[in-house]
Structure formats: structure tokens, C-alpha cells
């Protein structure tokens, strides 16, 4: 009955919406973006604004860059970034994707960084950037970012001590029902180089621990490589609550130790 009433309500609202939109126009492809401001720096009169889909945390983060001068948006031609963790005695970078224009004619440049550790006593994160405007101006600088800890990132080493970063990209907020699963795999070549690993086998096993030694799995599709370190599959969560998913990488016939992601699944 609830949805019968809801359907009637939706029909009325849809009618009103259509009537309203018949008299208005849409002029933006940014309307589906809901961004959280992260930080802003001013360099040579240019204001560099950094936003993200949510607060930054360990794991993959999609970052949106925009440039303004005297309150007006400035078109960015190209942009490069380098995330940097300063731990005092040492520095290291993190896996990232170079920012590119977010949809055609949009003022945002979108990039992705996999932050491998949270900000805190161990060190702090900055992102060094170089922006070239359409009129040939170059703006260089860095912007500080604060990274919170999350369940979505972990790492493992193979028998030779080579490190692999495993990022739970999707779903960031798991919900009951079928969820598309995306896992990112990177490896550590040097302190500044973290290339994607696209030829691994990713073995997963989701499990609901219901306490008292009881629990069960649910149906899922094992992730397969889509290139650039991205592996896609799905998990069908049968209930809300705390779930774990074990992930095991097989790289060049070497089965790495199992890592566990533990997270909360919401009802809706």
C-alpha cells in the first residue's frame, strides 16, 4: 500500500515536474556533481580550488580541480599532479591518475589518487601540481590535504617482499542487494612509482559473520581485469550488518597472502 500511495505521489510530482520543465531549460552538465570542498590555494593571483566527491580518506579518491582569477573561471588546458607524503625522514608518492577534463566544456579537471596512509603523526600529504591555462600561463604549487583512515585500502607483500596496494573502489557504501564491485591493484616499483597491475587473478570471498561462530556467504561474481589495475565483479549482499570480504591476489602464479576488508552494509 505504501508504494501504491508512493506511485500516485510520484505520478503527480512527475506531472508537475514535466509541466515546470516545459518552461525552463537546462544548461549544465555539472548538475549531477555534488562536491565537497577540500582546500584552496592562491598562487600568483590564481585561485586553485580542490574538491572531491567526499572527504578524503585512504583508498581511491576522485579529485576535482578548478581555477579562478578575480572570481572568474579560467579554462585549464593541461594539468599534472604528484601526491607526496612527507614522513620527515622520508617521502613517498602514491598511485594516481593524471587529471583530465571532466566532461566536455566543463571547468573541472578530474583525477584520482590512491592515498596509502592517513594523515597524522606519521606524516602529512600534499599534492604538487602544475597547471597550464589555455592562454599559456603556467601555475605551479602544492596544496595540503588531510586524509582520514578508511577500511577501503590495504596492502600485501609477495614472497620477495614486493608490495601490492589493494583498493576497494566500489561500493564505497555497500547496500543490501547487488553491488558492483571494483578493486584497484597497484604495485610499488619505487618510492615515487606505483604502476597498475592488470594481469593478476583476484580471488574474493564475502562472508557475513553472525557471531557465535556462525555465518554464511552470499552469491558474487569474481572480479576480472578491465585494464589499468581495475578489476570488476559484483557482490549480492543478502542482509545489512558487518561483512568481511577476503581478497587474494595471484600474480605470476604466486598466490599472495589473503587480506580482509571489513565493512558495514546498509539496508538501503
Amino acid at each position: 500500500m505504501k508504494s501504491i500511495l508512493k506511485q500516485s505521489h510520484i505520478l503527480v510530482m512527475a506531472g508537475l515536474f514535466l509541466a515546470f520543465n516545459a518552461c525552463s531549460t537546462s544548461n549544465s552538465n555539472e548538475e549531477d556533481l555534488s562536491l565537497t570542498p577540500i582546500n584552496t590555494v592562491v598562487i600568483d593571483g590564481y585561485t586553485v580550488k580542490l574538491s572531491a566527491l567526499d572527504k578524503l580518506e585512504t583508498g581511491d579518491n576522485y579529485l576535482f580541480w578548478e581555477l579562478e582569477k578575480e572570481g572568474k573561471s579560467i579554462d585549464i588546458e593541461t594539468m599534472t599532479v604528484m601526491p607526496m607524503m612527507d614522513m620527515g625522514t622520508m617521502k613517498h608518492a602514491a598511485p594516481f591518475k593524471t587529471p583530465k577534463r571532466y566532461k566536455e566544456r566543463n571547468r573541472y579537471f578530474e583525477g584520482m589518487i590512491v592515498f596509502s596512509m592517513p594523515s597524522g603523526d606519521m606524516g602529512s600529504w600534499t599534492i604538487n601540481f602544475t597547471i597550464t591555462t589555455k592562454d599559456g600561463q603556467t601555475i605551479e604549487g602544492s596544496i595540503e590535504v588531510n586524509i582520514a583512515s578508511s577500511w577501503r585500502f590495504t596492502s600485501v607483500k609477495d614472497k620477495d617482499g614486493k608490495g601490492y596496494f589493494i583498493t576497494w573502489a566500489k561500493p564505497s557504501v555497500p547496500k543490501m542487494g547487488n553491488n558492483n564491485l571494483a578493486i584497484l591493484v597497484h604495485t610499488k616499483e619505487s618510492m615515487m612509482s606505483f604502476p597498475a597491475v592488470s594481469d593478476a587473478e583476484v580471488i574474493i570471498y564475502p562472508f557475513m559473520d553472525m557471531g557465535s561462530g556462525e555465518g554464511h556467504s552470499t552469491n558474487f561474481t569474481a572480479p576480472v581485469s578491465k585494464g589499468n589495475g581495475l578489476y570488476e565483479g559484483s557482490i549480492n549482499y543478502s542482509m545489512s550488518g558487518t561483512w568481511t570480504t577476503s581478497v587474494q591476489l595471484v600474480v605470476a602464479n604466486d598466490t599472495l597472502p589473503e587480506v580482509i576488508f571489513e565493512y558495514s552494509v546498509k539496508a538501503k
Partner: protein
Amino acid sequence: MKTIINLFLVIFCLSTASIAQKRTITVLDKMSKEPVINAHIIDGDEKVFAVTDVEGKVEISLEREIFKIHSLGYIESIIVLKETDDIIYLIPTILQAGQSVMVYAYGEKKANIKDYQSTQSHHTLDHFLDNIDGVAMIQRGAFGWEPSIRGQSDQRMNLNIDGMQIFKACVDKMDPISSYIESNNLSKLQIDKSGSSVAENGNGNSTINLISKKPDFAPFSLHLTSGLRVPDQYRVLALNSNYATETTAFQVSGSIKKADDFSAGRGSVIPNTQFNKMNLNVGVKQLLPSKNSVEVNFITDKATDVGYPALLMDATKALANILRVQYNWRDTKAPFQLTTAMLYGNTIRHWMDDDSRDVTQREVMRNMHMPMYGSTGTIGSKITGEATALNHRFEWFLNGFMSEANGDMWMISLDPNVEDMYIYNMDEIVTKNVSLGGRHSFLLSPSFLVKIEESASFTSLGTNSDNYASMFESLYNKAYAPRNRMLFSGSATAIWFPKDNWSLSLSSIYSERLGNHIELFGHYIYNYVDGYFYDGNPWLKSEKSVNFELNSTVEVENHSLSLSVFHKQYFDYISGKEVSDISNNDFQFKQYQNLGEAIMLGGEVRAINRFWDNLKTEVRASYTYAQNTTLNDPLPMIPPLKGLNSITYNFDTNNITASMEWAVAQTRISKKSSTESKTDGHAIFNLVYTKSLFDGSLSAIVEFKNIFDTYYSEHTSIASIPEAGRNGMLTLKYHY
């Protein structure tokens, strides 16, 4: 009922000592609309005081409002004449054959093979149904027994109240629809075991239709019932009343029942078998100047603190609100005629939890509490009428309903470090259905009738929740869309009367059914019979069945015998199939699949004999053999050969009935599709003594059941919960 009628007849006979005015009524054949000649009009002393003429007409005193009409070849009718009645229709006996009609009444003298009288109206409806041959009750405790006909229950049978579609709210089947009506607000039961009433029901499933009491244009009446049973302290207080003016009738019935835990044979108390229940049924009927009428009926039912020892949980509250508005047209013989139009709506809500259980020791879902809630809401209409086409008169039925079902469960661990878990068992599941059916009767000769019924229905089942739908998409790797199906059913019945009192009928029924909302869209639903968690399958194929039933009935004045045998075959039989890749020792999962074929065959016998007008014997027995022929495995929850034998003796104002309920051992148990246990046979003995006082206005009933305190359980009792041991009950009934 008989006592009431007799009282009325006496009153009216006395009051007609001086006949002042007369009125003329016409008695017609219901089917042919031809006059019924020489029909006997009978008063309360069983004396014929008038006979219809060649036009079916008869003059009757205006004061004479209640009488019987008897004519060979017609069902005897008790008439309560209204001011507006000019025509009375008699139903040919031949039309009644082939379909079981059970009347829930008291004191019928005639050995009517189709009437089942309750001698235990103060008990629950469940006990009454359990003793009808061909019907068995699936039990989860002392309350809310679930009827099954010939081994078919739930989705494979129709269980309606006044023809309304009502969906239970509890996914654990705690609340079959029969739990929302009480014996004292029940007028009668219509039981169609074969499923031949395809046109009216929209499918060929076996059907129990619970007909509630309606306002009657009869003198004021008041019935009060009070009873106490030991040792379970079951107490009941019930009221029925009817009041009518010339054009408006009112009816109210209500009851309050409460019971503590019962004791099984040899004295062991069965915990969690208590219940508490309130039921109210009110109705009003208005006659209109056009001789049409409109009636409104409302049933509300509330059960609280209901224990279910066979389940992990108990029901804390169950609420039902059932509203029906019906318009009745008088018979006009028009080429296209509306007979009734009914609009209805109902809501069922059900809460349960395990707060009173020790959750640390159970086999599944240990160390957590699991409060559950379920609800259904249904609106629908049912329109019936008659029509003439190509000189052929037929009945038509147009039904439609829309229903939404929701159910969820919390899992709250005793360990505070474990996050609460939540699950949807049903999320915004919507069922829509519209069906059109026709019923045709062809009287090929005075002793040979053929009935043909057909139905076409459109059913749509789906969920309005995208998240919920995505679970099934993932389970079956298919894109979700609501399941829409056209379903067809039909039946043909040939009835032959070799002699006036002997009928032979053969029915064949073809039926299709889409799985119900739980078979298609249920999620994580625990089956207490096999211990598996079930997921629905929206992509099930329709299940088909072909049923044949042969019935022979002999009825003479004081003796009757009815024998039925049937054979039913299912195709694309819907059942659970294990999902091994996610099952483990603690949690085992199944999904509904079409698992080949199944057969059910068996029969029932019923014999009633009356001797010297004060001694009556009754024998009922039924048997069903059910087998999944694809898996070569017996179907689960099939009752063994069982029956009831009784003998009743009347003298003066006393009535004594001794009965024996029996069942043989059930050794045919399901091992592949379920995990049943064998059940021993049993026989229990009961005794009922009824004393009428003050000219029948007060009755005292003393009953002893399971006199020898036998410890036993029915095969259809989940978890083999034993039945009640020796118990006694005193009931007082008063009527005005």
C-alpha cells in the same frame, strides 16, 4: 440453528391461528427459471401446509415468514420470507453434486452428506476443519493452524473469506487467513476439494471459502457463549446478535479467547502454546426500493501473546482489518444481468519476536534476537452476473485485486560488538490480478448434467524496490522486470443421476498458477520443515496441474454415503533446490525451481447413518499418496490415512456423542526435497454431552477430549509438537 428455527416456527405457527391476509409467492427452478410444481411447503412440525400449483404459485399467510420448501430433485431450502420476496428459487440437486458444500450449523436432523455440523462450536475453527475428511491442518502450536486440502496448502490452495483475496503477513506462515475469522462469526464453509469452481476462483486450486455471518432479515436474536477448558485454562466468551427492521438488518458477533500452555498426553506441559485473541464482526444490510440490496461488513481481529513452539519465535501481535461492501441485484432474467458487485480492502499486520526464548541453545541463529514484522494490504473487487448468448444462459465472474507485501527481520546479537543485522524478507512486493470466468451448465437429460467452467487471468508480480530487485538479478543473472503472465484454467464435470438419490460425477480440471509472491520474491525465508533458507525465483515457469475426481453419492432419508477418489498430476512443480556454493553446516540455502513432475492421488469416504431418529453414526476417512516423480521422493507434510468415527444418541433434551479420531503411522516421508521424520499412528477418544434447558434457550455442554491421555502428534505438526492430552471443557450457551 435447528433449535432456533423450531422456536421461530412454533412462534409463527401460533401466531397464524387466525389467518387474516395471504400473499402469493412463486417457486421457480434456479437454473431453468421454470415453475416448480408440487413443491411442499412445510412448517416447523414437518407438516405440509401448502403445495405449489402448475405455475409454481402458492398462497401463504402474511404472518408465516419462516418455512421449508421440499421438492424432489431440489435442495431443500429453509426460507425466511421478506416483504419484498415474490419469487423463491430452488436449486436443483444436480447442481450441487460434484462440489462439496459444508454448512457450519447445529442440529440438522437429515443425514445430509454435504453438511458438516460442528458439535464443538466453542472450540476453534482449526479443530473443526481438522476433522473434515480430505482436510488436514499444518500445526505450529495451538494457534493459527494452516489448512491443507488433500496435502495441498498455502500457494496450492485458495483460502478466502467471503471470496476476498487476503494475503497472510507472516512469512513463517503463523497467520493463515483462517486465523482471522472465528467459528462464532462464521456462517458456513464452502470447500471445493477438486478445484472445479474455476470460474469463480480464477484458478483450479482446491478452495476453502469462509463465509462470515451476514445481517439477516429475521427477528431479533441474541446468542451468548461462555466456556472454560482445563488444564490449559482456555476460556471463551462470545456473542452473536441480529436485529432487523423491514428494510435494514444489523448483525454483530464477537469473541474473546485466552489460553495458557496446554499439556500433552501423560501430563507434560508444552511451553509457548498460549494465545490471546479478540474478534469482532459487524455488518449492516439495507434493502432498497428497487428490491436490490447493499451490505457492508467489517471484521477486525487482534491476537496477542501467541506462542509457536515449533518455530524460533512467537507472535506478539497480529492485526487484521477486513472491509467488504457488496451490492446485490435482484434476479431480472435480463440478457445481461449483474448479480453482485463487491469491493473490498484489507490490511494484515504481524509482529513476532523471540524475546521470551533462550536463544543461546537453539540450532540455528544462535545468540541473537530476531524481531520480525510483516504486512500486507489488498484492495479488490468481485463482480458476478449472468448472461444469455446464443440461447445459452451462463454465469460470469470478474475478479480483480492488487496487493502489496512487506516483511523484514532484525538480527540483534547478544554480543554487543556484533553490529545489528537487518534483512528484507519481502520488500514492496506487488501482486496484481484480474480474471474473467464463465460457468455453463448443460442439462442434457433430466438425469445428466454437464458443467463447463473456464477462466482466463492476468497476473503481474514484481517489486517496487530497485535494491531488492537487484538481489534477484544477481542470483539468477537476469535483468529484472515484473513477471506478467496470462494464466488459463478450465474444468468439466459430468454428473449422472442413475436414480433420484444416487449421483455419479466425474470432474477434470486443468489449472495454471504463477508462483506466489514468496515463491517469486521471498528472500531468506526459513523453512521449518527442512531447515533451509529460501530465496524466491522471479523467473519460475508457471506450474500446471491436471486433476481428475470421481465421486459417487447415495442419499436416502436416514442414510448417506459419499466416496471420492482423485488423481492430480503437477507439471513444472515448484519446489526448493539446494544452493550448495553458499550453504554450510549452519546455514543452508535453497532457491525455488521448477522441479519436474509430482502426483497426488487418494480419496475420501463419508457415511452417515441415522437409526430410530435418535441414533446417528458417522464415519469419515481420507488418504493421500503424494510423490515427486522426478526426484522419486514422497512430498512433505502429507497426512497419512486418517479419519473420524462418531456415534450420537439423542434422548429428550440430551445429546451424547462419542467419537474416535485416528490416524495410521506415516512412513512415507520426504528425504530428498525435505527432511521429515516418520510419525506413529494414534487413536484418541472423545465424549460430548449436551443438555438443553428452558426449552432450549440454555444449553450446557460438557466435553472430554483425549480421554485416555494419549501422547501423540500429527504428521502435519511441524517439529512433531504433540497434541493436547486429556482435557475437559464446560460450555454454557444462551440464546434469545
